[in-house]
């Protein structure tokens, strides 16, 4: 049995990357490495979490994140249940805590929660003994997304420390942006954001983040761009005048990338609005790591599940073999 490294401290839950150390994040990313291979097998299953019951509690629609978690859980052999806000007690007015307590009464081990309200994951984590994994809470954090972004960056560029990463788009409403800022900074990267001023939150510079208001400057500066989805309702609610103009001013196009002084990695958490924040030539081009992100998402989530279930960092390979 490998002893956990003293610096590794994940705690009971993963509600966010804020406050996590470089060592802890590195341990998660390192743990994801041996799990990548499982998804490449003909029979994609190891019984690492056999007998564990995991509830995917999704109060907000999600395709990619929910399926990615479900694959991660199933490939590790856990039993899973999916609950969505429609067709459950949620619509009957049951509170979040009561829903969770009722699930606990049926003896579960972990909850993955996606919720439209910031803080919902920590609210739940503080009130139930099961491990809670934040699958995205309001505009707060989406830690597994940032972890898979970092794993993909490390795969592509060989390191995270010292990288210049710019997050582009609607920073104000983005939980992906916050988790990336906390995570990347802990890992020693420099972080910038770029977007229209109406979508950059107040006081972001005080978080140690550089700001760009012209995409050309961001491209000039960056080693990697993480391009966020621009939601259509931002136009209706008056944050920007039109999607067309957004594309003209902030769209990441091949022409703009060609002027970059270096080969920039292009990330996008999806789903993409092609022709709005990103052009197809970029999304499908040689610099894009958008599909590797999705592949890595499963491995990173397996790593988080394994570690929260008590698995030792560095012990994933052995656990895989042992159970096989």
């Amino acid at each position, binding site marked *: 049995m490998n002893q956990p490294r003293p610096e590794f401290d994940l705690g009971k839950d993963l509600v966010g990357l804020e406050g996590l150390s470089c060592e802890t994040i590195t341990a998660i990313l390192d743990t994801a490495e041996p799990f990548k291979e499982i998804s490449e097998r003909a029979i994609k299953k190891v019984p690492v979490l056999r007998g564990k019951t995991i509830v995917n509690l999704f109060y907000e629609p999600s395709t990619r994140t929910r399926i990615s978690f479900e694959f991660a859980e199933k490939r590790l052999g856990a039993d899973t249940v999916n609950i969505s806000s429609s067709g459950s007690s949620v619509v009957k007015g049951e509170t*979040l805590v009561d829903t969770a307590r009722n699930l606990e009464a049926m003896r579960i081990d972990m909850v993955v929660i996606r919720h439209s*309200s910031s*803080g*919902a994951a920590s*609210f739940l984590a503080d009130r139930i003994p099961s491990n809670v994994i934040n699958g995205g809470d*309001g*505009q*707060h954090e989406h830690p597994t997304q940032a972890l898979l972004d970092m794993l993909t960056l490390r795969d592509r560029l060989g390191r995270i420390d010292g990288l210049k990463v710019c997050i582009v788009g609607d920073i104000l409403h983005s939980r992906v942006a*916050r988790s990336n800022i906390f995570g990347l900074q802990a890992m020693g990267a420099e972080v910038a954001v770029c977007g229209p001023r109406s979508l950059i939150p107040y*006081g972001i510079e005080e978080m140690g983040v550089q700001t760009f208001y012209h995409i050309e400057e961001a491209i000039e500066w960056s080693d990697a761009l993480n391009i966020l989805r621009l939601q259509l309702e931002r136009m209706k609610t008056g944050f920007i005048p039109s999607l067309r103009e957004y594309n003209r001013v902030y769209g990441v196009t091949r022409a703009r990338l060609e002027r970059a002084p270096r080969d920039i990695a292009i990330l996008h958490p999806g789903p993409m609005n092609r022709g709005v924040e990103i052009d197809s030539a970029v999304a499908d081009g040689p610099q894009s790591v958008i599909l590797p992100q999705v592949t890595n998402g499963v491995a990173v989530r397996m790593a988080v599940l394994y570690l929260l279930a008590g698995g030792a960092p560095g012990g994933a390979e052995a656990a895989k073999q042992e159970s096989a």
Partner: protein
Amino acid sequence: MSRPIVLRGARVVDPSQNMDGPGDVLVRDGLIEAVEPVIAGPDEAEVIDVSGMTVCPGLIDLHVHLREPGGEHKESIHTGSHAALAGGFTTVWAMPNTDPPIDDPAAVGYVRLAARAARGTRVMPIGAASIDQKGERMTEVGELVKAGAVAVSDDGHPVWDTGLMRRLLEYTRTFHIPVLQHAEDRALAGGVMNEGVVATAMGLRGLPNAAEACMVARDVQLAELTGGHLHVCHVSARQSVEQLRMAKDKGLRVTSEVTPHHLILTDEMCRGYNTEAKVNPPLRTQEDVEAVTQALLDGVIDVIATDHAPHTYEEKEQEFDYAPFGINGLETALGLSMLALVETGLLSFSELIDRMSCAPARIMGLEGGTLRSGSPADIVVLDPDERWTVDPAEFRSRSRNTPIAGWELAGRVHRTMVSGELRFQRAATSD
């Protein structure tokens, strides 16, 4: 006719008469008859030994939510008016955002009757400024005043329509009442905490200082235009203070209040998604705390008022977005204000009593706020040096929502007298 009462041996602090020294207080027929260094008689008097204590004019709170009718699960006129007594308040002004709102004379009458039956603090009803507090049609202000309303307000919401606000400030002049404004620009609202770096890190929607200051700026202009009495509720932003300072410099009839929580707490309290610190206007930054404090010292902000806003455990025990705004304030107001202002040496104890008793009476033309002979015997007996720990389980209020549970405060109320009747007495300890 009840027996006269002599409060004997206390330090008497009455800022309305620049009084601060040892003395006895004689109360007869619900009025203060005399305050003198030593009062011997009369023989039939009931003598209460309050040596070691401080006697002050009862506190006056211009802003409370008693929730009745419609919100009795949070608070009632009975529980709220007894919570007020425990906090040293002898008069409170009750906001009309009940369900239904207090927007007609019968509703005003109901509040007065319920308050009389409660035998707690004096409760003075505030009438709604607009029908159903919708901000569209003015209420029958004259009828409300005749029924006993002391002011009008749509608090909970602003009077957002500039035209209606103008008409209200004009119309209320005839009836000598103020318009109390919850200053918040609707188009800038929609957040759940102060807009700032804390909200940014937590991913919560922000309420900018400008949401308040824009409305204050507009209303100050309307006060100048109309000559009406504008009273700005719960000032929280430093930019609002700038507008109020300008209004005072011009000599406009503009008054305002600040809550104890805005004098000491900041948006850092919201960290960890602490819904007890969710309040509107929101807890802001240290810069704002300093600005509203300075404004209170300067007289730019006239008074301290609690914005006592009780909510149940279940309502606060939710995701931050869903929890209601509000802090339960009546029973901690004096102690928290002492901590913020007197312990820090910013105000003397006597000046604090001025801001919590004399000044509210002065700006609103009320009878209380003084121990002058002939005044109603609304009196609080307290120990300004006593330290105590906030335990919400001990609240008289029906609700327990406070972000300062477990805090050690300074200054504790021991007895509260309304119209010469001893209506609150703290059990055991110091008697």
